[in-house]
């Protein structure tokens, strides 16, 4: 055997001997054994690795945990469940509250429209017609005065198009959403939660920060809220949860430019 071939065989055997000793290289077994029989240096390496394996296996694989371990685990599980239940119960009420709010708004709007068409029999006609009517409406219905600066954006009206099957279907698919004013409360609340989370995070109160960020996320906050949650999970060693959050962001087609750097003192 020439020198180069021997050198290559040694290189091969030294790479494969570890798996061979573990019984995980059956196809290579004959070749490795043949080399070990002929090469004292590689044989010595194999013996050394065997001795090393025995030395490691002499260490205890199992250890007795501190007393009361089982109780502590069960208490932790109870605490985790207790923390989840009120939160879930609270969130269950959110749709009810939203529905009630929406119903009140519809009733108020209906009353406002009715009163706008019919002058109030009790309100005396006053100079300045329209303005007086508006004032009376506000007074009678009890709604806050509409503020012109707080205009909701109106949905873009598309130019008239022939009523093709496609356009009819498209309109049928989302008939109600177009008529509703866009909600400004949820993003504002989500942002407030994020701001609070940032404060807590800067103070090192990661548990509180996590709660605020999670609230922002659950309020329908932006993908940034999810990234906040992921970052705190990662900081607290909950990598699996962090990955879940990031996966959710990825699925939502995150634009990398949305990353918002946060400096924590």
């Amino acid at each position: 055997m020439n020198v180069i071939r021997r050198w290559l065989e040694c290189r091969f055997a030294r790479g494969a001997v570890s798996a061979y000793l573990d019984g995980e290289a059956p196809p290579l077994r004959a070749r490795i054994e043949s080399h070990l029989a002929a090469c004292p240096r590689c044989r010595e390496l194999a013996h050394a690795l065997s001795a090393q394996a025995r030395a490691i296996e002499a260490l205890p694989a199992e250890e007795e945990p501190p007393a009361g371990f089982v109780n502590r685990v069960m208490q932790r599980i109870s605490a985790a469940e207790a923390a989840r239940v009120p939160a879930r119960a609270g969130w269950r009420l959110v749709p009810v509250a939203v529905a009630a709010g929406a119903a009140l708004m519809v009733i108020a709007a209906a009353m406002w429209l009715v009163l706008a068409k019919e002058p109030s029999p009790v309100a005396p006609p006053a100079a300045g017609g329209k303005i007086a009517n508006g004032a009376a409406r506000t007074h009678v219905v009890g709604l806050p005065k509409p503020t012109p600066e707080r205009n909701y954006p109106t949905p873009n009206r598309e130019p008239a198009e022939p009523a093709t099957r496609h356009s009819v279907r498209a309109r049928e698919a989302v008939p109600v959403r177009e008529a509703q004013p866009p909600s400004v409360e949820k993003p504002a609340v989500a942002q407030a939660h994020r701001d609070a989370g940032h404060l807590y995070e800067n103070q090192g109160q990661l548990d509180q920060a996590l709660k605020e960020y999670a609230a922002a996320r659950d309020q329908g906050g932006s993908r940034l809220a999810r990234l906040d949650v992921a970052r705190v999970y990662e900081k607290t060693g909950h990598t699996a949860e962090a990955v879940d959050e990031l996966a959710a962001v990825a699925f939502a087609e995150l634009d990398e430019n949305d990353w918002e750097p946060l400096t924590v003192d």
Partner: protein
Amino acid sequence: MDKPADTADLDIVRRCLAGHRDAFAELVQRHQRAVFGIALRMLGDRDQADDAAQEAFVRAYSRLSTFRGDSNVRAWLLRITTRLCIDLLRVRRRRPEVFLADQQTDPADAGWEGGVAERHSVARAIAELPPHYKAAIILRHLQHMSYSDIAAALGIPVATVKTHLLRARRMLRARLRPDAAEGATP
């Protein structure tokens, strides 16, 4: 006659999923030594290992519904524990302060070639390995897992397990026997 371990564990899992939370205590009781042992070996500190082992069981409880039953419960618990410890090691970026070679210092207790001092050296050398290498060595030699089980536990390909073990063993050899550092040429 006692049920086989796997069957008994699966029974416990079913009872937990049926709403009997207290049954989980039985599972903790059965596997606490293995879970704590691997956490201790990975983290090198009893307090951290205690915390990590508890967290591993809490995670396991919260993910019981995802347990598919295609591996045994013990392997599943060790997988959760190992991954958790790797994450902790990455986040904390610190070396273990205690190497856990032995709790007893009786020199007569010679477990292998050189006894306590050698075991201490081995434990120290393992503790200094990078997290994935350490996990591969522990799962292979202390939990006697196959390469495919280690791959599943660590979420890496089998070929990577081979590489991790080969490199880990080279590192261990270089640390334990500096004079015997391998040369590539015969």
